[in-house]
Every structure is written in C-alpha cells, then in structure tokens.
C-alpha cells in the first residue's frame, strides 16, 4: 500500500532522513520505533508532503506521491493523527470533526461517521459543543483519532498517540487502534517511542536510528531481539 524507497529529507542543510526504505502492506499495522530525534516524525511529514523529500520515492498504491501538495496527498486516503494532537483549540468538538471530513461532500454519511466516533468515544458526544482547547489530553487524543477517521482513510498515520497520556487512556487508545484495523480494514502506520506497547499491537516493525532504518522484522522477533530489548524495552 505504501512504499518508501531511499527517501532523503532535509531541514535546511540538515539531513533528517538518510535514505529510508520501508513497506506497508494493505491491512497491516506497522510500527516505527526509535528514540527521540531519530527522524520518525519527519518520516510522517515526508509522507504527507508537509516536508517533501529531496530525493527518493514515496509510492502510495503504486503512484509516486512525493512532491505533491499535502491536500492532494490527503485526498488519496491518507490521514494523520499528529504528534501533540493538534486539535483546533477554538473550534468545537463537532467543528473539529467536520474539519476531518473536509474533503467529503456526502452529508448523510458524514453524520453517520460522526455518530460512529461518538460510539467509539462516548465522552466526545458529551463534549460535542465544547471548544477543543478545553478538553483534557486524553480526550484531545480521542478527538484527534476521530478527526482522522472522519476522512475515511485507507491509511492512518499515528504519531506518538501514547505521549503524555495517563495509562488508562493509553490502553483505551491502543484498543481502539486495533479495533479500527480489525473492523474497518484500515491500514495503520504507528510511530511510537513506547516500543513495548507498539510491538504488542503491530504485525511488523521497523527500528529507526539517526535517520536510518537499522532493524526490521515481525513484531514478535523485534520483541525478542537482544538489541531492541536493551535499547528500547529496558530489559
């Protein structure tokens, strides 16, 4: 479904991605783990076209999308739950969800999807007329996931969904991620620092260090890998 081939991305003269290649198959949950500053978020920004790669190819369903405008990429079916949630603070919960469905025009279906989000996260239904900025961190993460789902993505990118959340919210969010994958067949690319958690839900994983992929394999094999254990799992 998504394939990165030798992608190099720069911030000014600093090379953040030094030739990243990875593959995500239809219906998979793939995780990208690594330390702070390894380039994980940059990989997502490159896929979405916010920080376009300087060289290399990004293929989505066979088409090269590198160099396209972000709104063009999103319209192909890629949604992102960005790091830090990035809820529009002065828009209400419902307006935030409306923004998720910005590229859609099927009003009836949008309404249905919104109700579906409210079923997934009942707390959002209670807060539907509240400005997004007044929600707690966990609620904002639920809203960010719901907002991304409103676009009916084929591929959902999640950037550190566990960051800064209470354990009870983290468990809930990861359960929902698995559910979205299982029930809707949405392909998921999960970027996480919390490697233990990410490898429990993912099918396969990649490990990133200093802008390079240094290890890849099934989630199980990574969980048992001595280097991963030492560096990321703290065992």
């Amino acid at each position: 479904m998504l394939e990165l081939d030798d992608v190099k991305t720069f911030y000014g003269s600093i090379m953040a991605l030094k030739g990243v290649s990875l593959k995500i198959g239809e219906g998979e949950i793939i995780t990208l783990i690594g330390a702070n500053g390894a380039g994980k978020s940059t990989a997502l920004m490159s896929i979405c076209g916010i920080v376009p790669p300087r060289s290399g190819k990004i293929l989505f369903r066979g088409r090269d999308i590198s160099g396209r405008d972000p709104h063009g990429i999103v319209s192909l079916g890629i949604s992102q739950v960005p790091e830090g949630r990035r809820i529009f603070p002065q828009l209400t919960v419902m307006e935030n969800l409306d923004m998720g469905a910005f590229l859609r025009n099927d009003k009836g279906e949008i309404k249905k999807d919104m109700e579906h989000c409210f079923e997934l996260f009942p707390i959002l239904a209670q807060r539907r007329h509240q400005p997004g900025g007044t929600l707690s961190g966990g609620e904002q993460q639920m809203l960010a996931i719901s907002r991304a789902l409103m676009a009916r993505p084929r591929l959902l990118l999640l950037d550190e969904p566990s960051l800064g959340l209470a354990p009870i919210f983290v468990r809930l969010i990861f359960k929902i991620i698995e559910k979205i994958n299982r029930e809707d067949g949405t392909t998921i690319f999960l970027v996480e620092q919390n490697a233990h958690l990410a490898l429990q839900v993912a099918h396969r994983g990649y490990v990133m260090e200093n802008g390079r992929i240094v290890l890849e394999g099934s989630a199980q094999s990574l969980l048992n890998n001595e280097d991963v254990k030492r560096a990321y799992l703290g065992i």
Partner: protein
Amino acid sequence: MDYFLELLIGGLTRGSIYALIALGYTMVYGIIELINFAHGEIYMIGAFTALIIASVLTMAGMSGLSVLILASVVAVIYASAYGFTVEKIAYKPLRQAQRLSPLISAIGMSIFLQNYVLIAQTSDFLPFPSLLPELPFMDAYAQFMGSSELIIVATTAVMTIILTLFIKFTKMGKAMRATAQDRNMAMLLGVNVNRVISNTFIIGSALAAVGGILIASHIGRINFYIGFIAGIKAFTAAVLGGIGSIPGAVLGGLILGWTESFATGYVSSDYEDVFAFALLVLILIFRPAGLLGKSTVQKV
C-alpha cells in the same frame, strides 16, 4: 444634546468605514500574521473604479440606483482581483521567509499602487458623484443623520453579519478558522491553504472596496492618497480591537470613529489624529493584545 447626537452619528459613520477596512486587516493577520499595508490602496482602487464606471455609465445616459449597483459590482470585483494579485505577487513567494520580508514587500506594494494611481489619475482631488440615494423618510432626521450616513451604517452592519455567518457556518469559513489556528494541521486534513489565503484576501478586498465607494460618495471627492490615511486609521482600529478578532475590528473601528468625531467636535479638528493615536497608545499600554484580542503565550 443635538450637537452631541450629531457627533455621535458622525462618529458612527466614520467608524463604520474604518470597521469595513479593518476587517480586511484583521482577517489577513489572523491567517498569515501579516500586516497588509497595501490594504488601504485596495480601498482607494475600489473608489476609483467606481468613479470611472459611474462616469462612463452617466455619460451613456444612465442614472439613479442602477449606476450605483453596476459601479459597485464592478469596483468590488476589480478590487478583489487586485487583492488576490497582490497576495500572489508580493506575499506568496515570501511565505517561508522571515516575518519582516513580507512586511517590507507590503509597504512596497502600497507605495507602488499609490504612485501608479497618481500617474494614471493625477494628484488632484477628483469630484465623486453622490451615488447613494436620498431616502425621503430621513428628511425628518436630517438634522442629525443624512440618508448616506444611514446607508453607510446599515451596509456595514449587514456586511459584518454576513461575514460572521459565513465564517461560523460555511465549510470555507471553518477552513479559514482552522487555517488561522494551525495551518499545517489544516493542510493535513486536506485544506488547500493557498486557496483559503486567496479567499481571505478576496473577501477583505471586497469589503474595503465597498467602504471606498460609500465614503467617496458621502464625502464627494477622492485622490490617490485617501487609501494611505484610511489604511493607517483602519489598521489602528484593528489593533485597538485586537488584531485577528472580527468583532474586535468592528468595535475598534467604532471607538476610533467616535474618538475622532468627539475630539473634532469638542476640541478642535486639528486634534482628531492626536486623540485617535493617543487612544491607541493607551490601549497598547494597558491591553497590549487589544480590547477583544487574546493574549497568547509564546510557546517554546
């Protein structure tokens, strides 16, 4: 008391025009954090376009309301095209640059447009026909408020309401608010941010052009320099109300209009600018974000 009422209405009229122009400043600032110094020139170009169209139509034998409507429609479209083009030429290429660069570009655009109209239309004040109709029922109140004043205030009120509804309820309005709050996130949701920015310039320019036609018709003469002065005043109004805030722009415009009107009426017309800018200084000392602006903490 009559004198007070007269000043009140005069200030309201003047303030309405400031508000119409200030809306353009505040919307553009809200989305790209740029003070569009060429905005006053758009207002001036709107007035000139209306003058040219109205003259042509009058020569062709038309009169009355149809001249006003046709001239206004053409002027609004023309001014919007100018606003759109100014953004594409002077600001869009500088979107990734430091904040000072587009600001300087804006000042350059302002000087360019002023001089271009100066060359095309001379520096003389040109008479502007009174396009606004006389409303017979206003005769009874002629002492405080003329027809044109009523039309100016009512038009501003209607425009502000339409704008507010547009921003609150339409898809484009929501996209504008989302882009103002977090541009990259809006992009990640599929918003064509360039189009949102263009639309903001078009809407702001259209409002400024309406203001230009109204005030030119009310005062009865224009020259190439009116945009500069009105622009500075409307900018003051936008800052006064809290730049980025739409109700703030209207409130700031009205307060500024009244300040000037009362200063002229009770002190001296020589002092109207002194009072207007003294008010600005006071507001900036005690409420740096403006009356309705939110003071934001810089994130690090």
